């Protein structure tokens, strides 16, 4: 069994978590201040996932802030960034509008601001 030290990134508390790993699986979690930390650690030791935030151009010249609707694989961040940089959004656009479906593993790219 190996113990891996992690910092939970789910909230600003930044709890120091000790994850016990056996056969590439997390079997025990200590140090988490809340249940979200356990979920984070279990995912982090198997396949780290991150929400990606960025911007895309719009047809009126303004930049539109965007994010992936769910966390994506950390290893795929740069691939997703390449796809994001090819998108041009039509205005008007509202928070939550889908700009690209399935940008990675069933995750959509959505707008996080309103532009009229």
């Amino acid at each position, binding site marked *: 069994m190996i113990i891996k030290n992690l910092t*939970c990134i789910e*909230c600003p508390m930044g709890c120091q978590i000790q994850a016990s790993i056996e056969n590439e699986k997390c079997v025990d979690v200590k140090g988490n201040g809340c249940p979200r930390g356990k979920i984070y650690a279990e995912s982090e030791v198997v396949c780290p996932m991150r929400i990606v935030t960025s911007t895309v151009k719009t047809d009126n010249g303004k*930049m539109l802030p965007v994010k992936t609707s769910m966390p994506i694989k950390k290893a795929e961040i740069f691939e997703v960034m390449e796809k994001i940089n090819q998108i041009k959004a039509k205005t008007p656009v509202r928070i939550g509008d889908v700009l690209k479906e399935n940008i990675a593993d069933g995750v959509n790219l959505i707008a996080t*601001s309103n532009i009229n």
Partner: protein
Amino acid sequence: MKKKYDIIVIGGGPAGLAAAISAYDKGAKSVLILEREDCLGGILNQCIHNGFGLNRFKESLSGPEYAFRFIDELKTRNIEVMLQTTVLSMREDKTITAINSKEGVFSLKAKAIILAMGCRERSRGALNIAGSRPAGIYSAGTAQKFVNVKGFLPGKKVVILGSGDIGLIMARRMTLEGAKVQAVLEIMPYSSGLKRNIVQCLDDFDIPLYLSHTITKIEGDKHVTGVVVSKVDQNRQPIPNTEIHFDCDTVLFSVGLIPENELSKSANIPLSPNTRGAIVYQTRETLVNGFFACGNVLQVHDLVDFVSEEAFLAGAYAGEYIKKANKGRDAVDVKNGKNVAYVVPQKIDKNIDGNVKLFFRPTKMLKDCTITVKCGDEILVKKNKKIVAPGEMETLILTKEKTDKIVYEIEVLVEGDI
């Protein structure tokens, strides 16, 4: 044009938005927000990363999403907003002089004023670095505006001085957009940013963080070509023969924020040398009657959730203020004790009902510590904490029962291992 308002809020960032909503909900009939930019939301408009609103909404929102939650709330109320309007000065009688392109220079009068002007970044001028002043040097906030609002990447090879959150966020942002971030340098032996940002902005992209290091020379004639970095001793002095060289075309500074209080000075509002914001009671009223302050203009917050919380408080008390005559004050002072850099509020008025939440920062990182609030020799509150750091604001609640016991002043102190 209307000239008289119950309440005028200066600044339409998260603090101004929440303060206006809360003052209106307390019964203020005419509330006006003055904002110099062309939209509401303040600095949140350029903070496109997520992590906002975890306390308030139990969701991880981006800056603009957080701002729109409040802008949408504002729109359901009869609150006036004047955009692209800059306040130039104020007087103690609550007259405001402002300017915009439609009215030119004009004046307004309010029964109460809420200050919500936010903060600005400390400039490079505060630091003393050898070298000429080549192009390619920006504050992290300016770079954030370039990349996120204007859609323009200021450079390809970057060194960041200071490990404040904005610097860390920009390290990741520029990396995602194709730049190479060579290093983040921090003169202190600890980072001033949140731990989660070290993990998700630096570690995720193998960006090295050098603690106890600073830039000692910036190279380049017209444009930055590189920097020389040295390790520093306990007194933050560069240690000879520890130089490391980095090639770069861009240097970002993330060396702290200062409340923007030029305006407050025009109304003779006393400021605290520790926070650089106004001295306030727990109601967030300053020492000049009818002037309230909240958000980053009062104290630099790490989390926007606390900004909103503080602004709701200020707005509510401003709403009360215009309704009824002041009971008169019975005020005690809140002192910074051992290892405490500042406490807000600086004064507690015992005539005000309700609990008092103290916000404070330690002067240094301490482990296994006890936080104590004392009145003379009597201990009012004692709390244990695993770790405290200047980069993370602490809070403590004093119940009414405790504040009633305070005689003359209280002291907040932190003791622990270094």
